[in-house]
């Protein structure tokens, strides 16, 4: 009797703690995509590619150019911001307004980058980023790496910052305005191209932050690019476009379901959860948990 009760308690704590960590990882991955697609309506299907490039960029700066880790990270984030802006300025701007072409163009770009990296042989055990702080702490009898704690901390900081940015900053408000009604926003003097450049740059930096925070937990692999894209889309759709609360809630739902699936069913169903989440959302509530924007326009 005693044994029977003690084991589930441990499992429950495991699920709770790792569920929270996984949820914040998802939130970090998805937040850039949410800003770019959910808030500003630019489908950036190169999101996963940006995530992976950041990893390799930091790795190259640290191990090939022997730069300081912190400097490498800052440099990589700056470069990613420029890359994001460049994607808009040179690719997306040409196909703006044609949803089909926007998706195909960015997806092709992401694919080109990821498959190029795969061809160059960027895979395997050799490509790992150092953790920020070594060591681990024990919470409720479960040892947790400090890096995972840092994931939660950075997750909270980034989410809070983005919420404040899009609600109280003029630029952030302008981004939301663009998504809600582009013509009205332009009449109020919002430069749509400039806003899109800012959104893409910020989205790429956020993808970079996610990469730098999450990649020390494992190896840098090209597959991560596709996974991150799928998970971000899942979070974005389940949460509802244009809603931070929805996105965070969705990250928690998918994150916990994933951990529960891994614990009780099989670890391979990790990605299936994301797909099922999207399908169920599309069937039951196409606008997502908290999607208010253009709710009626999404549904035919």
């Amino acid at each position, binding site marked *: 009797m005693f044994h029977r009760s003690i084991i589930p308690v441990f499992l429950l704590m495991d699920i709770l703690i790792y569920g929270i960590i996984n949820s914040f990882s998802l939130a970090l991955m998805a937040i850039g995509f949410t800003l770019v697609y959910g808030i500003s309506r630019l*489908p950036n*299907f190169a999101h996963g590619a940006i995530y992976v490039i950041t990893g390799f960029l930091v790795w190259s700066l640290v191990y090939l150019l022997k730069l300081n880790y912190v400097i490498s990270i800052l440099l990589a984030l700056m470069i990613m911001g420029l890359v994001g802006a460049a994607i808009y300025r040179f*690719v997306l701007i*040409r*196909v703006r307004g044609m*949803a*089909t*072409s926007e*998706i*195909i*163009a960015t*997806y*092709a*770009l992401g*694919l*080109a980058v990821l*498959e*190029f990296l*795969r*061809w160059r042989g960027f895979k395997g055990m050799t490509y790992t980023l150092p953790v920020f702080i070594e060591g681990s702490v024990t919470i409720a009898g479960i040892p947790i790496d400090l890096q995972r704690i840092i994931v939660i901390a950075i997750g909270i900081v980034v989410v809070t910052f983005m919420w404040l940015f899009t609600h109280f900053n003029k630029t952030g408000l302008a981004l939301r305005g663009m998504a809600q009604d582009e013509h009205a926003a332009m009449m109020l003097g919002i430069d749509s191209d400039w806003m899109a450049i800012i959104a893409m740059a910020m989205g790429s930096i956020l993808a970079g932050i996610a990469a730098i925070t999450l990649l020390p937990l494992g190896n840098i692999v090209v597959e991560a690019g*596709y996974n991150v894209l*799928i998970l971000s*889309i899942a979070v974005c*759709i389940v949460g509802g476009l244009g809603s931070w609360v929805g996105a965070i809630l969705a990250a928690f739902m998918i994150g916990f379901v994933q951990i529960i699936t891994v614990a009780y069913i*099989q670890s*391979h169903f990790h*990605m*299936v959860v*994301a*797909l099922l989440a*999207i*399908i169920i959302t*599309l*069937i039951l509530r*196409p606008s997502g948990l908290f999607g208010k924007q253009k709710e009626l*326009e*999404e*549904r*035919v």
Partner: protein
Amino acid sequence: MNDDGRKTMNGEIGAIERRKERLDRGIKVRTEGIYAISSWEEVAYLALPRLILILGILLLPFLMPSLYWNRVISIVGIYGLLALGFDFLAHYVGLVSLGGSLFIGVGGYLAAILNKSFGLSPLFTIPAATLGGAILCTLLILPALPLRGVYFAIVTLMYPLVLFRIIEALNILGGTDGILGVASFPNPWVEQYLILFVVIIALFGLRRLVNEDIGLVFRGVKDNDQAVKASGLSITYYKAIAVFITSALGCFGGAYFVHIYMVAGISLFALDYSVIPIAATVIGGGGTLVGPLLGCFILVPISELLRAFGTLRIVFYSVILLAFIMFRSEGIMVYAQRKYHQFERWVKV
């Protein structure tokens, strides 16, 4: 317009004596009225391009230097079916499918299972896999159909990636090795002409379909779904029909592929099947239906020549795709058709 034309418009008449004049032929009257069969020239004007295409496709197996290149023709046919389906969905129904490999994979695995587990011959497995796979794919995609926007693209993008991982991880359906020892075709000529006939039928069938009543509804769904809805038609139903047609083409390709290579592996869900059809459509000219086929005839042999480069090929298609969509979104066939219907001549000013 060329420089001469522009200068003439600016009023510098004295400087230039000639300008290029362009006249559009009366396409409508030439193709639809009795005028179309008024003389041999007019008949040839309409029929020659089609005849050349059909004869060219049918003669291809004879022109190939080796069996290897005959196999490449079969592969071109498979990609051609996918590209036709992509073009039909994207430009006539307004649904962008990023997952051609879903259709190939579902059709391929179904055919392999039917052949290996039930011992059916390709004569039965291919039609069964085509129909069954199309139904299955339509059901899988159904949740995304009542919605507008990018959901269709996202859902079709995700299925192949996720199915790939499921098969790999759970080690079902032969796992990473795949289902080996699927029956092959009795005769290389059957193998070759089966796909070529299906491609020709699919091409002309789709061209006919999009101009029938149902084709008008499809275009209505693309251009103004509210109007279609206001007419009392179910948009989801029509989208489902379109997806069914496309997935039937893709599943046929998959089943055929499995029977020529005698193996159904995890590579059926490879990215190539999703990217090449899109690239072929963009290069060949979206909305023409012939264009994507032509694009496949250009891209797939190049891809075979680049086989040694591995995944770099996908980089290559992606870059071509990106370049065409950014700079030459028109495509070859749209340009060629316009030129075919135009007279160009120099006239004195």
